């Protein structure tokens, strides 16, 4: 099929081209589901430094975010749950205890909603989550309709790295089960959106009713197992 738009890239090096030191990276995944491991490996290999990473988890000791942490590539982690079962030996735990990494701890629903705001062009939102807790420190509290809320601000990424199931050349994406998690929201919230997919399919193959992330949000698609 012909057409001028083609989001597909054939190599991981192309998929991450232009991402620089100091970037803020939105990294998809919840636990082991939905983490773009090939893109993670490519960023590790590129040796990028001073990264700010937004990720629900802090790495499990598998070849996930843990390898960026172990490589000293991450300056700051914005995260809801940096602990893992492997945490007694994980890189995040060591770095955090040694004071070598900054942590911004955010309740999970607030984390995703801050990215949703960024992607939806909104200036922030008021949430009841965290009111009266240690995580409310420094945040504006506003009483609306008799209930206290915290002001939370949008969270933008320079880059979003996602794991999806299928893609076509326009960048339309489907997901696989609970590997969907943060992907659809992160796809709205970054200047450059890169998806790693199980399969690239011909235009017209994806049922428009089944497309979760429309291609307008996606810049590059690389297939799992593509050459470096």
């Amino acid at each position, binding site marked *: 099929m012909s057409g001028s738009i083609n989001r597909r890239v054939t190599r991981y090096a192309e998929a991450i081209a232009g991402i620089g030191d100091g970037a803020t990276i939105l990294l998809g995944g*919840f636990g082991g589901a939905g983490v773009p491991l090939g893109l993670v490996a490519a960023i590790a290999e590129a040796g990028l430094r001073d990264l700010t990473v937004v990720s629900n988890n802090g790495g499990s000791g598998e070849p996930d975010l843990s390898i960026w942490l172990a490589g000293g590539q991450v300056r700051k982690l914005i995260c809801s749950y940096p602990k893992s079962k492997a945490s007694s030996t994980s890189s995040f735990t060591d770095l955090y205890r040694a004071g070598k990494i900054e942590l911004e701890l955010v309740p999970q629903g607030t984390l995703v909603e801050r990215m949703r705001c960024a992607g939806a062009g909104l200036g922030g939102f008021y949430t009841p989550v965290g009111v009266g807790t240690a995580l409310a420190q420094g945040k504006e509290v506003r009483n609306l309709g008799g209930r206290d809320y915290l002001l939370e601000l949008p969270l933008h990424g320079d880059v979003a790295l996602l794991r999806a199931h299928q893609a076509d050349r326009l960048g339309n994406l489907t997901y696989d089960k609970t590997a969907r998690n943060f992907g659809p929201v992160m796809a709205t919230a970054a200047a450059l959106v890169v998806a790693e997919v199980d399969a690239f399919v011909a235009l017209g193959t994806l049922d428009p009713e089944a497309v979760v992330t429309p291609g307008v949000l996606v810049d590059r698609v690389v297939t799992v197992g593509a050459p470096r």
Partner: protein
Amino acid sequence: MTPLTRDQIARRVARALPDGSFVNLGIGLPDLVPNHIPADREIILHSENGILHLGPRPPAGQEDWNLINAGKQPVTIRPGGSYFDSALSFAIMRGGHLDISVLGAFQVSGDGDLANWSTGAADDIPAVGGAMDLAVGAREIWVMMEHSSRQGQPRIVRRCTYPLTARAVVTRIFTNLAVLVRTEAGLVVEEIIPGLTLAALQQQTDAPLLAGTQAGRGLAPLEG
């Protein structure tokens, strides 16, 4: 007098879940609840990572690591189940669309304050996950926990000393010794294990307790 086992607490919680309810189970002790849901009851389980109507862990060898629960363990999905992204999942939680959230806890106060995300220890790795969202959003917050800490300290306290998850949210507490309900008047003991007196339970509880009989409910034996 025999305190309930962890599985017996889970069975008691499962029996209390109303037919037709939408429920989120936290990680830890609540993980045991699905094993005990009566077969004739339709309970729709939600997990924060974007799934409604999850079923039990599949047999060994059939795990799908793209199909996991909030504890990151493989699960199955039941007929009528659905997947959705994290923003919608937390809208379901925060927006009051779940009937009940069952959570583990370090401490609960008599006013319903919940502490379940951090011990506050200097070497603790802070990790909140969806705990605060769940505690604020579900229509009812049930806590299941051992009545006392491993060091023998009461977990049901006048004032939480651990960092708070949310204020005044817990509606019901299931422990290995008793079932308690929070009312305007205070914490009411609805059920207690046979052989344990209310006075003995109070000795293991920092927050003041009211007997269910005083609220006209009747103090019933707690059975797992």
